[in-house]
């Protein structure tokens, strides 16, 4: 079922004039398998739209300047920083957030491995870590430790729990190789 969501409009933005270009945009996209239509100001970022318009707060506001990776989501299977992606630029695309990676009943192998390894401390970076790692595993089913570290180089963990995170990603790779399923894996695009 398709739902249309209109962003909350600050009154100052409701003025229209005849200048070229759009102050408001209507954007169609698929979020975690559900078609969504959003009407929002042109300066809405994907991060703001996901959290504030769609209520998907698993994607975190971190630095908001592309310096931490906490807001990483998958757009057509590729990691993107929600804070530096305009909502306008995901028109027609498929977005996967951490909510779409797995469920409590049916977690993604990465989520199982993160729990096993205690790879989440405060948890703020975890969503971004999971999605970046999901894209890595979709691309490289058996990454070396160095490859995992290189792939996660843009995701900062201020608890500095990197050793467990890297171990969890490698454990998830082994679980998938051993036949664990990845439900609705967004990394497949």
């Amino acid at each position, binding site marked *: 079922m398709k739902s249309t969501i209109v962003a909350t409009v600050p009154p100052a933005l409701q003025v229209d004039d005849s200048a070229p*270009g*759009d*102050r408001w*945009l209507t954007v169609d996209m698929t979020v975690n398998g559900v078609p969504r239509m959003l009407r929002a100001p*042109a300066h809405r970022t994907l991060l703001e739209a996901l959290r504030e318009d769609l209520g998907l707060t698993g994607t975190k506001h971190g630095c908001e300047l592309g310096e931490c*990776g906490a807001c990483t989501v998958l757009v057509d299977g590729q*990691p993107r920083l929600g804070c*530096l992606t305009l909502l306008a630029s995901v028109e027609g695309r498929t977005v996967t957030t951490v909510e779409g990676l797995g469920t409590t009943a049916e977690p993604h192998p990465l989520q199982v491995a993160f729990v096993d390894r205690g790879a989440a401390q405060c948890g703020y970076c975890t969503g971004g870590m999971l999605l970046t790692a999901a894209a890595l595993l979709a691309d490289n089913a058996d990454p070396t430790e160095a490859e995992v570290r290189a792939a996660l180089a843009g995701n900062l963990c201020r608890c500095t729990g990197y050793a467990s995170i890297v171990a969890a990603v490698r454990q998830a790779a082994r679980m998938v190789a051993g036949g664990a399923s990845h439900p609705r894996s967004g990394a497949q695009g």
Partner: protein
Amino acid sequence: MLHLPSFRYLAPRSLSEAVGLLAELGAEAQLLAGGTDLLPLLKRGQLSPRYLVALAGVPELSGIRTAAEATVRDGSGLTLGALTSIAELTRQPVLRRHFPVIGHAASLIATPTLRSMGTLGGNLCLDTRCTYVNRSPLWREAAGDCLKCTGDVCRVAPGDDRCWAAVSSDLAPAMIALDAQIRIAGPRGERVIPAEALYRDDGLSHLTLSAGEIVVDVQLLRPTGVCASYMKLRPRASFDFPSLGVAVALRMAKDECENARVVVGAVASRPLRIAEAEVILTGHVPTAERLSAAADAVHRAIRPMDNVDLPPGYRRQVARVFTERALQHALRQVPARAGANGALTPGRQN
């Protein structure tokens, strides 16, 4: 939270439409490609354009072409569309094979996710950076604003009447070292310029693009025997913009260096070609002594300012070391041939 300021969004579907829009909207418009440089500038209030012209839907800016149709001297040219992602530059087999220095420089930019978002054109046109301007509005207000952002004094060199913000592109030095050509479209048609001519030494306006002009693509030619290298200095092994970048390219004929390029980034508002170092290398066998002399020439020629990460004196010292190492690395890529006359033996490991 940091929100983007409001703007009007335009998404042209062709290059001529994009150029037309830019010409019409003038200085109130900014171009949006990957957004990884522009959006932070907007969020920090360093720019407040009325219009954003998104280039993603402009087909002429996409793709990598082995260029039968481009201006190629020897038939082995390559054209890289401005919207080519930086990640794509690290992966492209034809680039890895013929111009490995480009993929290497690209691999040193930012982080994997930022590389897959950011573009070639965006990196070449990256705004100049400075510790006094790439800050929150609160920080800038407390420190006192500067020339580059509504203020009237340079905080790095208050006695000067210019902005010293540093060119921070990693691809620019490498492209200049390879004598890349940049194709630019504008209201008065197209022009092709050497990569070096895209830049001027002015932190406020370091690109020589005129109003309404857009970088379309980068053309690389491969005269035989060119070997190149790039080294980058930064505090962390990911994320950081360069505190120093050194690109070298040598065209070798037998044991002699026919032509040399030595280009240094992040020590001025434009990438600097170090003519003194190039002269030392050109027309000579690249002995260890000559490489060392060229590195000394770089050390003499540059004057880094205290405006990016790491102290200027240290960056100047490292520029000397990096120049020598980059030259050695480039020479090791020369197809193996017996060295003679005291030349560093090409093909040697280590």
